[in-house]
């Protein structure tokens, strides 16, 4: 096989193995620490909890940051490459996307590890 093609095959299988290994790491994870978000003028509430109503404000439009909630944790996806224009595969930010996440990323929960957690979702 030409060398460039072999490299693609190796990278692809490496990616799958790393993904698989990450699941075990995630099982031992505690809740991620909250990060500093004071570069935004409209900062999150001081206690870093969000109701669904408050979360809806952070939809990435009109200069607002883009936040999404998965499994009760609120993540900042404003500068996440996969959330260009605050949308991701037809989803919009500012919402609880737990069911969308689990139906699409089953077995790949390690994706959440790479996101910036900034708060928790609470019921009003």
């Amino acid at each position, binding site marked *: 096989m*030409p*060398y*460039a*093609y072999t*490299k*693609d*095959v190796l*990278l*692809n299988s490496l990616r*799958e193995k790393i993904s698989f290994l990450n699941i075990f790491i995630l099982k031992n994870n505690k809740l991620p620490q909250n990060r500093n978000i004071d*570069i935004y003028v409209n900062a999150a509430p001081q206690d870093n909890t969000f109701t669904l109503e408050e979360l809806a404000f952070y939809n*990435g*439009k*009109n*200069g*607002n*940051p*883009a936040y999404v909630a998965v499994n009760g944790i609120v993540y900042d996806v*404003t*500068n996440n*490459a*996969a959330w*260009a*224009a*605050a*949308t*991701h*595969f*037809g989803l919009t930010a500012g919402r609880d996307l737990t069911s969308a996440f689990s139906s699409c990323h089953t077995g790949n929960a390690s994706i959440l590890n790479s996101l910036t957690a900034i708060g928790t979702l609470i019921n009003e």
Partner: protein
Amino acid sequence: MNNCSFYNNRINKAAELIEKAKSDIFNGKINKINLVWLELTGCSGNIISLLNGNNPDFTYLITDMVNFIYNNSLLAAEGKFAIENLYNILKEDYVLAVEGAIATKNNGLYNIIGRIADKPLTALEAVKTFGEKAKHVIAVGACATHGGVSAARPNPSESVSVQSVLNRKVIKLPGCPCHPDWFMGTLAHILLYGEPELDNLDRPIMFYSTLLHDICPRRSYFDKGIFAEKLGDKTCMFKLGCRGPVTRVDCPLRQWNDYVNWPIKDDTPCIGCAQFGFPDAMEPFINYDTTRIINNE
């Protein structure tokens, strides 16, 4: 162009495979295969794209590599004779390439591609008949691989992907359209070595493995947070809604139309046309309503 050997290897991969296939056929080491191309519920963009192929070009493909049995836009035969020729291939080995989705409403009556035994031949029946018996089935283009534009909301014809109506492996080449190199490279690989290495979504790894974002020439702008504010700006178009970060394909290397250009090079964002979910999951294609750009940097 570029002195990077990895870069040149990627560009020339399809041509290399085709050249080897041609010389092996000439030396009698392998036989030309039969190729049936069905245009179903689609726009025929993929056959047009194939005709744009350059390195290798379409003429090489049909004279030296395959016996091109059927393609309703290109074949010389007409009517009954064309369909009879098509059905005669069922007795032999052939590779089936399908472009366009499959309309399923009213038992497929929304897409009729001919007449057989005095009844309309629907896309649904054709793909089932020819798909089950083919040596390899290649779904070419977004509509064939996952429904694509034909299946976009609200999908009045109830179009579905080729895989949904076939009970066998289907090699998927997403793209709107599919680049001629991706198709011809896959076909040449089938001829020489059999089915290429596929990822978990049945796409050939040699064309569809790298994230476009990871090989984008504007990546350093993204990393530094230097974003374009309107079309025509030369910096990263993340804020305009570029889908490069979620699309796995090699457009930045291979480029289009004789390898001269591609969307981002022409200052317009990637719309993720070669990723599953296009177009509904890739909307909006352009967005001016994004997060604030911090000015004191």
